[in-house]
């Protein structure tokens, strides 16, 4: 078992989330930086999607009540076992009774700690992930909590330390424009590709909020709420973009100017407040299929569109 001596600013249990429930209003959630969670699990011989800890700005201290094998990945921070500094990106054998401490990362935001056997906790819709937006899954980890480690399966792979690329100082995220790029001025699209944005302290697991050039709209209509994807770059009425992360709302009422490449979402999830980010903007390959036909009557009462559901644009019921 693991005793939590100090929780740090925000430590949650995460796995690969609960995809497939968006039609119920439930988002995917799960690790904000999925490749790092997968790697941490692989290092200790777990299935990639086992539940592990996601640390936000480090600060976690644990006591292992039994011998265990752990691995830390993601944002680099100091890892100390009984005061002695250890490697990240490697499996560590931790003796019973030892204290494990994680410092504050110097780059990036989120560090992942996997335990051989995974963490045992109650699943909600098949996942142990904490969704901070819809309050599903376990509560964030608190001082005094006791976490249970599951029974290990398979063997620990024989690697010393895996080489990983260091998180860059200036992040460039590849995006494709759409689905609502046509709601913006040509200038806004140009600015999205040319200017530097800065991540703000209001960023969280829901999204990375950016400051910088204001992206002006040509279409000032109210957008009826529509489905949102992870990586969507949604632009709020003040012209500032938000990059949606794991706990993003299922639907949203602001137009999405572009969507981050799936392989760059982990980089977005490691953006620190104050860090600068640029976008490498590509046009999407056009969808050739467009259907045009007169809909037939089905006997179901025809329902007009709501002119507006949310004057604030945010999806608020």
């Amino acid at each position, binding site marked *: 078992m693991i005793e939590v001596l100090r929780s740090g600013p925000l430590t949650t249990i995460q796995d690969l989330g609960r995809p497939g429930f968006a039609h119920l209003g439930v988002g995917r959630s799960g690790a904000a930086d999925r490749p790092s969670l997968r790697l941490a699990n692989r290092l200790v011989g777990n299935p990639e999607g086992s539940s592990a800890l996601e640390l936000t700005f480090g600060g976690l201290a644990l006591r292992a009540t039994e011998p265990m094998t752990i691995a830390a990945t993601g944002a680099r921070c100091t890892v100390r076992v009984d005061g002695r500094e250890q490697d990240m990106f490697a499996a560590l054998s931790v003796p019973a009774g030892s204290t494990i401490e994680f410092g504050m990362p110097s780059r990036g935001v989120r560090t992942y700690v996997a335990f051989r056997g995974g963490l045992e906790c109650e699943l909600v819709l098949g996942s142990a992930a904490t969704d901070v937006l819809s309050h599903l899954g376990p509560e964030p980890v608190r001082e005094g909590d006791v976490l249970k480690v599951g029974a290990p399966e398979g063997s620990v792979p024989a690697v010393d330390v895996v080489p990983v690329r260091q998180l860059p100082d200036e992040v460039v995220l590849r995006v494709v424009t759409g689905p609502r790029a046509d709601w913006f001025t040509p200038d806004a699209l140009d600015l999205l590709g040319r200017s530097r944005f800065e991540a703000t302290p209001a960023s969280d697991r829901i999204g990375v909020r950016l400051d910088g050039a204001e992206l002006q709209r040509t279409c000032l209509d109210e957008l009826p709420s529509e489905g949102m994807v992870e990586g969507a770059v949604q632009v709020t009425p003040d012209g500032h973009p938000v990059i949606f992360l794991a706990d993003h709302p299922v639907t949203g009422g602001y137009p999405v100017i572009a969507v981050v490449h799936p392989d760059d979402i982990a980089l977005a999830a490691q953006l620190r407040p104050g860090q600068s980010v640029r976008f490498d903007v590509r046009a999407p390959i056009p969808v050739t299929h467009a259907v045009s036909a007169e809909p037939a009557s*089905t006997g179901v009462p025809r329902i007009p569109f709501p002119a*507006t559901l*949310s004057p*604030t644009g945010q999806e*608020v*019921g």
Partner: protein
Amino acid sequence: MRTLLPTGHNALLVECFDLEDVMALHCALTSSRPHGVVDLVPAARTLLVTFDDTTTRAEVARAVTGVEFGAPVVAAAPAEVTIEVTYDGQDLDDIAELTGIPKDDVVRRHLGGDYVVAFTGFAPGFAYIAGGDPALVVPRRATPRTRVPAGSVALAGEFTGIYPHEGPGGWQVIGRTEAPLWDLRRESPALLTPGTRVRFTEGRAS
């Protein structure tokens, strides 16, 4: 006319002809789910289709365009849900004033609707229920409340919504219900899912 809007590498946003078309398309794709589709997110005018790397955008586009207009809207079980409402909402007076319809008539008209869940969103289990009396179309409150109790039945736009959990909200509260809208112990935690027909009945104040 349905328009397919590219939405990153793993999604398509389908702009539908109207809400009815959204529901028909959602229903058709749910009952015969194309390979590789992860999530279907219906909304007021659009259906978002997300997919994994085992399929391609062209395959998904083909599946979407293969659904004919006017496909029937058939709900997954249960087909109809009856919700008992105590009509004592704190916004009944405002709704009466906004619509120019006396309070008793507001309730009578709300009970008379032929409702169907159009889509969900905002919070787990929150359903946008369409099909109400067009005379009861009201805007959201100018200032949202910071706390709306769980079970509040409320109106906004063409929709009736029920808050499954306590939280902030801006819809006009018409009453309350004890219907179990969200229960994780059930196989389907949400009571109301897209396509479900809904009937409101008047309950006793408790």
